């Protein structure tokens, strides 16, 4: 059963040094506040996992929390590059393991399903298997077709943001829900930050519900997705994403941002 607690306590419980951890979110509902708390608590040696590492991951990488990144697309959506991520890869200070989106999504699905691997058609001709040895061929036992296998993406911890939880810790999110359900189900420990804690979850079109018994910690963090957004609560702060480009590009501007975060 999920325990409702403060963000600081929840992060301390759920995200540990050396964890393989995903802060998932597909543009929408990105758990920025929880990620910032991880920076404040100076977590180290994390293997960060995400399909679309974006500004939050640029921040975590720049702050020195990450040893390794497992991902499929790392950029500032609609703006350009992530300069802390780019610098860390170019300097060789960040190990990377990369896939296509389809492969990453299916790695989560396999882990959520309790399977050791997933099968997909894959993409003939791509150089990805030459740099990511865990993209392997697999032969269909019925047709003899050669397809692609990827290993399950099991997580130590998963952090997501949602619109609502009830007092029992059942969680509800809607809009673009991405791979958040899969990430939580793939993790040994999970934390959900929410816009609102309500008496009762009312059914919503398109809602995904995570029952309390698959969630470890819930923290009430209104605005916890900013500069990302929470459908029904906030809109995406596109200006911040644009402004991040300059902060991220310049190491000293980034250090200033980081000092402000720690203050």
């Amino acid at each position, binding site marked *: 059963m999920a325990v409702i607690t403060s963000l600081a306590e929840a992060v301390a419980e759920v995200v540990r040094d050396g964890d393989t951890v995903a802060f998932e979110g597909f543009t*929408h509902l990105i758990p920025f506040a929880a990620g910032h708390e991880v920076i404040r608590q100076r977590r180290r040696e994390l293997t960060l996992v995400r399909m679309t590492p974006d500004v939050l991951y640029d921040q975590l990488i720049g702050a020195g929390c990450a040893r390794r990144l497992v991902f499929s697309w790392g950029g500032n959506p609609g703006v350009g590059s992530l300069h802390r991520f780019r610098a860390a890869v*170019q300097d060789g200070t960040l190990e990377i393991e990369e896939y296509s*989106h389809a492969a990453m999504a299916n790695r989560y699905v396999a882990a959520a399903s309790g399977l050791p691997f997933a099968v997909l058609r894959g993409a*003939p001709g*791509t150089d990805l298997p030459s740099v990511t040895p865990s993209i392997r061929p697999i032969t269909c036992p019925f047709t003899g077709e050669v397809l692609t296998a990827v290993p399950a993406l099991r997580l130590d911890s998963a952090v997501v943001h949602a619109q609502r939880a009830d007092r029992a810790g059942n969680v509800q999110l809607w809009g673009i829900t991405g791979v958040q359900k899969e990430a939580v189900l793939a993790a040994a420990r999970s934390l959900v930050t929410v816009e609102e804690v309500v008496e009762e979850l009312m059914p919503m079109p398109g809602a995904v519900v995570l029952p309390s018994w698959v969630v470890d910690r819930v923290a009430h963090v209104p605005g916890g997705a900013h500069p990302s957004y929470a459908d029904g609560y906030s809109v995406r702060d596109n200006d911040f994403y644009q402004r991040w480009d300059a902060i991220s590009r310049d190491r000293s501007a980034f250090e200033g941002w980081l000092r402000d975060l720690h203050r």
Partner: protein
Amino acid sequence: MTYTADEMMTVAAARTLADGAVCFVGIGIPSTAANLARRTHAPGLVLIYESGCIGSKPSTLPLSIGDGELASTADAVVSVPEIFNYWLQPGRVDVGFLGAAQLDRRGNINTTVIGPYSAPKVRLPGAGGAPEIASCCRSVIVVVRQSLKTFVDGLDFVTSAAAPRMVITDLGVLEPDDTGELVLTSLHPGVSADDARAATGWPLAVSPSLSVTSPPSAAELAVLRSLR
């Protein structure tokens, strides 16, 4: 009416989309072109975004593939695994619309790295949905600005073996010949074949029936500019 090279490129890309087609759309110029098509000659165009939105009908252009407008105007919003497994992978999508950081003469795409993978000169965002968009859609159209930096003779990394039906640039249109090599088949108004050759990192083949792209109509430009 004056227009920019990017506007010409976007209009040319939009025209390739038939009404009723199902189109898997990346962000940026592909999304602009697809939405332009939907507002002009192809009102029944079905837009699919990898964030899980099927049949989105945004009234303004999204900045990202996960903007709220894409979800709230969609016929259905599904999970990210589902969009790849149930909708893209089985070949239900007619057209995949892709961009590129580098492109070779066969239309292979690099969005991963400039320089060696293990010692990158420039690390790019990576594959995203592109490898499977390239391999699973019935046809692929690449929309990309043409330059020596982009149109290279040998990729540093093949992210997606796109084999596009068409590459639409700010200079013209390229289509594969029987061997799969891209051939210049149309030039946008005011562009010469030499301009295109000068922006191409390999000896660019030119079609004997090279045509000139129709310039953007006033209606096309008006809709395009209203989308911003």
